[in-house]
């Protein structure tokens, strides 16, 4: 049963891979990469059941985080050609009054 479900997930991974390879826009690819990452996370969770090692879930957690960071980096670079600028000025606002002054 679990095996059959993992097979279904790998199938949908393959379909996403087709979209990833086909494009046509770069955005399609980013979307596909992100979706592929989500699927891999779920596949790993399921797979850790299959091989009876809960360690797989730790890797799934790691993936969920890394996938996010990678996607954001790609998009930010794509948008601004730089990793340097701030997307949000929200960090200092709350503390500016309390800490520095």
């Amino acid at each position: 049963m679990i095996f059959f479900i993992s097979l279904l997930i790998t199938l949908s991974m393959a379909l996403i891979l087709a979209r990833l390879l086909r494009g046509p826009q770069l955005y399609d690819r980013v979307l596909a990469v992100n979706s592929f990452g989500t699927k891999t996370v779920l596949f790993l969770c399921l797979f850790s059941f299959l091989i009876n090692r809960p360690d797989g879930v730790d890797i799934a957690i790691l993936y969920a985080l890394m996938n996010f960071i990678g996607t954001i980096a790609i998009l930010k670079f794509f948008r601004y050609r730089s990793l340097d600028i701030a997307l949000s000025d929200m960090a200092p606002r709350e503390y500016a009054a309390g800490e520095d002054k």
Partner: protein
Amino acid sequence: MIEWGVWLDLARHGLAGAMMLAGACFMLIGSIGVLRLPDFYARIHAAGITDTLATIFLLGGMVVESGLTQTSAKLALVGMLLFLTSPTATHAVANAAHKAGLKPRLGTIAPPHPRDREDG
């Protein structure tokens, strides 16, 4: 008493299996949608199915399957992280495309086959 336990266990596994199967099916539908839909903005919606309902069902099924263990807690953590990150990433992709001037196809689209496959 033992009978009850056995039946309960069986029902739990049945429920877990059904939930996971439903999740996998939704995931497949989402992937088909990503492949089939004609336009980037439309594909986002199909990818969204994977991010939401498929995730809920699959992880829910796994939690039911493993019962009250540390693994379930970790699976719930995975679910929480996915629920935080995946809509954010989707939003960021859509935002970038929109800001870069990629125009969505609006109006009514009734394609026999999507024809926007000029380059690969």
